[in-house]
């Protein structure tokens, strides 16, 4: 018993004080804060390293710097590991990695979510190539588990060098202000090699990964808030790819969201598409993912009559809701998560197309933009699309269109499904008339008006069956609920293949 207490102190009281002085909880405290009280069972507590080089034989590293075990969150079983920074800076040696691998294999076998709390200075240099082997074994298992069990990475300290690739391979990455630091090469290396000075926070802090790189999915101001986000996420997704998310009790949206009053008729005016989502979801709850990154597209989970749905929406409030490199990437990965875990996808469309610009073209918007087409086409979960307003050109095709096998496509009367916006289209189609006119401006105005009346509506697309029904905004929730209900047994399969080759 005494031995157990000693091990549970990790790196000892001094190291714990240091950890707390940095505003960080200890590994075991974190696990206890996240899991249901008393549910945690720890394994491999007495594991010791076998390194003998560089005086390592004399060093006792309790648990080899990582805590692993199983427990429950809101009654649902999970597997968890937490690196213990108080023990040799949470550095990863061979036995440390074997413990992580053990709990990963358990999670995959038992089909329960895996949560990894990262707080480590990196590879344990003294263990040399064994440490690298350890990382490799972890990455391999992250990949095997991908799409089978949800994998969650929580960055609660440094996570540098090769270590960053385990979180990068997992489904959701959580970061906390002032605590999370992620980078491949740190500020010191950058300074010596490049002569550029940058702080850890500016290089790879929580804000950077939530707003600039898109590596992080959830941002919290402290650890307790971060744990609440993890619990909320786990309540919305299933334990594995054989199951559906646990249903909650159906609740109506709040009356304060008046769906008919959110979207302005004038297609040039912005609004917050999240209000439309909240106007249809149970209790007007919407759990947004990657809120601050590529915010011209909104993704997240909401419940429809108790069932979790994934929402993918253009956001006219930011960059007019265009698709671009980052937003395509964001949407594609989310769609693939929903598809892997049996979560129906609801798409709200209002976009003028792809973002024009040299930077976009040269950043590979063709390659990245293709990801969203791939993800929608490949997804076999129920796919429901509502065109709220603009659906122009390539953007119309990409956003869960009938042509990518949406099961149901609805459009509001304000929808405009066309090859491009009226100005652009009129300028091309009536170029000659405008050029030859004695009053080109007046002719252009007339032609734009003519085009608007003819094509800026949902009825042309509806006449071809590309849109199933034109619906009033107020009918949206009930019609979506009906569509979900009739799609419950949806069963389609892709041509037999080892795997597709998406334009990653």
């Amino acid at each position, binding site marked *: 018993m005494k031995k157990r207490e000693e091990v549970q102190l990790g790196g000892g009281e001094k190291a714990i004080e240091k950890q707390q002085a940095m505003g960080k909880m200890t590994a075991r405290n974190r696990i206890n804060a996240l899991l249901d009280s008393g549910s945690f069972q720890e394994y491999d507590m007495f594991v010791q390293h076998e390194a003998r080089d560089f005086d390592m034989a004399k060093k006792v590293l309790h648990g080899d710097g990582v805590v692993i075990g199983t427990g429950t969150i809101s009654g649902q079983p999970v597997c968890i590991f937490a690196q213990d920074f108080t023990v040799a800076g949470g550095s990863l040696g061979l036995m440390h990695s074997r413990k992580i691998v053990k709990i990963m294999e358990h999670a995959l076998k038992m089909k329960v979510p895996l949560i990894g709390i990262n707080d480590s200075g990196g590879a344990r240099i003294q263990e040399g190539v064994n440490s690298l082997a350890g990382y490799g074994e972890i990455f391999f298992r992250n990949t095997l588990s991908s799409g089978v069990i949800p994998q969650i990475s929580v960055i609660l300290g440094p996570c540098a060098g090769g270590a960053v690739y385990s979180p990068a391979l997992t489904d959701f990455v959580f970061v906390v202000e002032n605590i999370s630091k992620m980078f491949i090469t740190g500020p010191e290396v950058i300074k010596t*090699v*490049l002569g550029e000075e940058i702080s850890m926070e500016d290089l790879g802090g929580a804000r950077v990964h939530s707003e600039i790189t898109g590596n992080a999915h959830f941002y919290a101001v402290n650890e307790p808030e971060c744990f609440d986000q993890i619990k909320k996420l786990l309540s919305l997704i299933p334990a594995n790819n054989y199951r559906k998310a646990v249903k909650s009790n159906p609740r109506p949206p709040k009356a304060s969201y008046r769906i008919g009053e959110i979207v302005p008729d004038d*297609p040039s005016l912005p609004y917050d598409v999240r209000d439309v989502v909240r106007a249809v979801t149970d209790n007007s709850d919407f759990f947004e993912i990657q809120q601050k990154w590529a915010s011209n597209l909104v993704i997240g989970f909401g419940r429809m009559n108790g069932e979790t749905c994934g929402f993918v929406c253009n956001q006219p409030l930011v*960059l007019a809701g265009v698709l671009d490199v980052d937003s395509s990437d964001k949407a594609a990965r989310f769609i693939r998560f929903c598809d892997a875990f049996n979560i129906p996808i609801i798409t709200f469309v209002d976009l003028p*197309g792809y973002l024009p610009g040299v930077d976009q073209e040269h950043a590979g918007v063709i390659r990245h933009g293709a990801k969203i087409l791939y993800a929608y086409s490949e997804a076999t979960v129920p796919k429901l699309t509502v065109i709220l307003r603009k659906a122009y050109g390539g953007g119309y095709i990409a956003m869960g269109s009938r042509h990518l096998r949406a099961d149901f496509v609805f459009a509001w009367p304000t929808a405009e499904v066309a090859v491009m916006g009226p100005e652009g289209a009129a300028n091309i189609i009536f170029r000659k008339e405008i050029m030859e006119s004695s009053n080109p401006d007046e002719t252009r105005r007339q032609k734009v008006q003519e085009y608007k009346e003819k094509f800026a509506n949902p009825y042309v697309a509806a006449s071809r069956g590309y849109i199933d029904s034109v619906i009033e905004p107020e009918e949206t929730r009930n019609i979506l609920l009906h569509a979900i209900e009739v799609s419950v047994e949806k069963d389609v399969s892709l041509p037999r293949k080892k795997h597709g080759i998406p334009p990653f």
Partner: protein
Amino acid sequence: MASPHFKEYITMEEKKDKKQGDETPGYKKIDILGDIYYTSFTQKFENRKPWVQPNSREIITLIPGTVKEILVKEGDRVEANQKIMVLEAMKMMNSINAPMSGSIKSVKVNVGDCLPKGTVMIEFE
């Protein structure tokens, strides 16, 4: 009139239009294929750099590195593929070869200089 496909699509300006401005204060204007939308911009979009034509007569660093050797001086004539400098970068001694035959207009760096990416090192006539 040029086809709208070939003009600079994006014009960025604070909203000036009085009537629209009253309805949507604080929004910015984006022009996509001739249609105007009121919206807000991301930091990334605001900070994007306009593209400039690269000057093929300049030798620039493609990765950050340290100048180890300079084998030419102003006025020298060099042949295409001739080694003209050595730049240590990513633990490699990278030889920099002349992309074309010609004469050296100026050498803009010294041995020992630590250079960021995109620095002009040598200019050709």
